[in-house]
């Protein structure tokens, strides 16, 4: 089973992503901010992280930077989701260590195809 960790402080977003991904056969866990994501990662290996940017206690960029430097799986694929499609967001996401950047709102089919691609389901 391919495991995805959805990291977002908005519960509606977490629920939405969970439903879409579970219907597509993924196993989904949730975290409400970057810190909780790190707690989950310490516990469970994931095939993909889907990470929001603006979250309390720890933002998405800081979270991804910590994943990339501190592990436990520094190579885990990361998709970052930002509210604006501005170039600055994309650059910040990629320089923090994300593999891919998407702008909100995310269309279901786009989300699924990206997640399938990045989590290795297609490979």
């Amino acid at each position, binding site marked *: 089973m391919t495991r995805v960790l959805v990291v977002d*402080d*908005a*519960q*509606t*977003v977490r*629920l*939405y992503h969970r*439903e879409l991904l579970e219907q597509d056969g993924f196993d989904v866990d949730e975290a409400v901010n970057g810190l909780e994501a790190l707690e989950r990662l310490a516990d469970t290996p994931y095939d993909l992280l889907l990470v929001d*940017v*603006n*979250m*309390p*206690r*720890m*933002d*998405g*960029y*800081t979270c991804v930077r910590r994943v990339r430097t501190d592990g436990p799986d520094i190579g885990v694929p990361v998709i970052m989701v930002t*509210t*604006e499609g501005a170039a*600055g967001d994309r650059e*910040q996401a990629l320089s923090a260590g994300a593999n891919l950047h998407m702008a*909100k*709102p*995310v*269309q*279901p089919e786009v989300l699924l195809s990206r997640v399938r691609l990045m989590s290795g389901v297609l490979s």
Partner: protein
Amino acid sequence: MPLIRRDDAAPAPGQERREIPRDREGLIAQLDDKRPVARRRASRELAGDAGAVDALCDALEREQDEGCRHAMLTALLVTGGQRVQERLLPLLRSEDAALRNGAIEVLQGMPKLAAGYMDELLADPDSDVRIFAVNILESLRHERVPDWLRGVLERDDHVNVCAAAVDVLTEVGDDHCLDALRQLPARFPGEPFIAFAVRTAERRITGEERGDGR
């Protein structure tokens, strides 16, 4: 016996007090100390001092150490007041997500001042700033929160601002928000997420569980 007791290990606070100047100027100068622990201590001891707000905010904007930022933001939260709010609002436009979110957390803790700036913030031309305004509302103890959020649903034409507002309404919404919620999907017909979020919020507000039992 491997367990040892050292009663002299911790000097009484009074003894330490004499070693380091405790006046405001001394502590403000210490905000520039090259050791993070000294900057953290100075921040902590400046908490509650309204005369140190500008110095703390200046230091916060320069500070790169995460622990020191944490301490400076906490000090500002403890002090509170108009000046803190005036200095933190511009940080919502910072490119630095950690600083932005830190400012939001402090503003959330100062509910009494929110009425003074919230309307303006929710009308900001920058949709990201409007989203941050909604983020402040998420944890704000203020009776107008549902009204502000309803206003967003009725007036804001940016899908992400409305989505953020719907999310907060899943927690704080009341019956007065239901009409505005139900009308929202029609304004964003191409966005299945909005329809989903609205259904979730409606369910939480009315307490009616959905048909499939989840």
